[in-house]
């Protein structure tokens, strides 16, 4: 069942220097029980996209296009209606668990508040649900933790609390914005393991935002690669790693450690991402692309179109043969090994 449908979403921030189009015509969809990964480097619009879906953008931002949760259109919804959906039908996990919990409220109070905002239950019942929620994310002696302040918990524990809080009201859509980025490596593994378990248990559509392709490989069904506010490639996760179609994706894959030889320097895509204040006229990746033709720089970028590979779509002018050949060669994928 299609749960989230985003259609031609444009999110523009008003700044002193002029409008910045952080999300520029993004379309995507996620089914219930499916995990969609959104990858891209810092500043490519991943977070702006997730905040747009949640309706958490600052006042300086405007949205056009369409975001549908199930059948309900979210763009243009009144604040109070959106507020009822947030935390109930859709929830979000933030990057840094150190700062996303209120430092002066006990864990229990925060969880109980989250429940009672959306469910008409007694304090005692809410407390029981909160304890269950903590237990479900693998927090030992949850009863005791209810009385703890965030500062008494480690980063990994806090992220577990955050995840528990997001799942309390059984949301249909869960957005995880770099849930492991701020954690150390061992904790990252634990949180990923937890997310993998939860994936099976909660029947929610999950949008996982990350810049870590390793996380994508472990958790996602489908991947959308974002560059400068646009989706440049979308594919089932196995396809993306086996037959990447977009030159930017090749660069991303090639820059993973362990792909090139151990002694070599890590690969780096030449150049820097464009300023979204004055984006390039044609394909936004053209200035950094080794395959760019004249048309790439001047004509409007092609839309996402289906490729010969099953379920995959790409926004690129290169022909299928070149994409298949160069993709395998440049990204050093499994096919080569």
């Amino acid at each position: 069942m299609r749960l989230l449908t985003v259609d031609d979403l444009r999110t523009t921030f008003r700044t002193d220097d002029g409008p910045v189009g952080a999300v520029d015509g993004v379309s995507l969809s996620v089914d219930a029980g499916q995990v969609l990964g959104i990858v891209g480097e810092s500043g490519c619009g991943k977070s702006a996209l997730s905040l747009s879906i949640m309706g958490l953008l600052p006042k300086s931002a405007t949205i056009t296009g369409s975001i549908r949760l199930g059948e309900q259109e979210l763009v243009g919804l009144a604040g109070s209606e959106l507020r009822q959906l947030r935390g109930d039908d859709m929830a979000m996990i933030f990057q840094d668990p150190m700062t996303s919990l209120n430092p002066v409220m006990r864990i229990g109070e925060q969880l109980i508040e989250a429940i009672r905002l959306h469910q008409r239950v007694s304090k005692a019942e809410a407390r029981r649900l909160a304890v269950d929620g903590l237990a479900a994310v693998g927090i030992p002696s949850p009863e005791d933790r209810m009385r703890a302040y965030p500062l008494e918990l480690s980063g990994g524990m806090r992220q577990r609390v955050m995840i528990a809080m997001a799942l309390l009201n059984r949301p249909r859509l869960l957005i995880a914005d770099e849930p492991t980025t701020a954690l150390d490596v061992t904790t990252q593994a634990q949180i990923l393991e937890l997310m993998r378990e939860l994936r099976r248990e909660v029947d929610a559509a999950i949008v996982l935002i990350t810049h870590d392709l390793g996380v994508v490989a472990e958790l996602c069904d489908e991947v959308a690669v974002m560059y400068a506010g646009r989706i440049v490639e979308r594919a089932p996760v196995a396809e993306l790693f086996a037959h990447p179609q977009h030159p930017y994706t090749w660069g991303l894959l090639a820059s993973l450690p362990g792909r090139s030889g151990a002694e070599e320097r890590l690969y780096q895509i030449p150049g820097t991402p464009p300023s979204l204040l004055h984006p390039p006229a044609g394909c936004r990746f053209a200035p950094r692309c080794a395959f760019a033709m004249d048309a790439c720089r001047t004509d409007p970028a092609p839309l996402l179109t289906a490729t010969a590979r099953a379920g995959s779509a790409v926004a690129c002018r290169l022909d299928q043969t070149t994409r298949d050949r160069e993709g395998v060669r440049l990204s050093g994928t499994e096919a080569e090994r």
Partner: protein
Amino acid sequence: MATVEQLEDMKTEGMVLARTPRQLAFARLRRDYVALISLAFIVLLVLFALAGPLFESWTGHPVNRSNSTGVDDYTLLPVGPLHGCADGLASVGERACFVLGASNNLGYDMLVQLSFGARTSLIIGIVATFLTMVVALLLGVIAGYVGGWTDTVIARLMDVVAAFPFLLFAIAASVAFGASLWFVILIIAIFSWFYPGRIFRGEVMSLRNREFVTAARMLGASNTRIVLRHLMPQLIGPLTVYASLSVAGAIAAEAALSYLGFGLPLEIPSWGRMISDAVPGGLYINAPFLMVFPGTLLVLTVLAFNLLGDGLRDALDPRGGTLL
């Protein structure tokens, strides 16, 4: 191998006790002798102020005496401490016996006046501070949270109030409206809210953009709920500090106004007026205690509230160390 969680358990189970910010603040305050002495002084001052009627009946000198009591027979006023007390403290209660001396030509008993003056100072300090804090919280939090034009208007209003010359305005208004207890309280509150208001505004501005506020919004909390449940509790620290400092400021301001003769009406005892009463004709040269007693109490009171405020600020400062 111990996991991070197990280590965390060991930590909370007694190896190093994690303390809440509040516990830490109290622990720090308990070691701050200056703040503790200030607090003790304030407690004594409150008792002293409450004891006013007791002093009245002990000395037999009511706080507001009319000529009919006969004390104005004393042509030699002012008189020094224990003047007219033939048997020392045993004579207290006799008409002519003044424990701490008597001030001005009407024969006000210094002890009784000081006690009721303390009452006045504390009432003004507390009520004016309460009003100040209500206005400061309301406008500061609204400006900081809403931002935009609302913030610009309120912030400029704060600048305007800050730029007003307080004494000049207060004296003019006192002449225009006539002085009363409420007048003094209001005029002090009107001229003090902007300072804590700015602090609260800044505090809320920085809190507003913290991730936990976005997280609360993510969970579907309304703005009112975020302000009341998530932001207000974080303002308790600065609120306590600036309330304490504001009490000191209000007491000093009242004394200044009353000293200049534009403060409280004559029937309300005031330390400021007691000091100014010692000035005409150079009374204080022969009877320095007329100025020294109320002056010292005033200085100590203002100092105590200021030092307590400083102590609270240090105790609530998150950079104040952990006291392991």
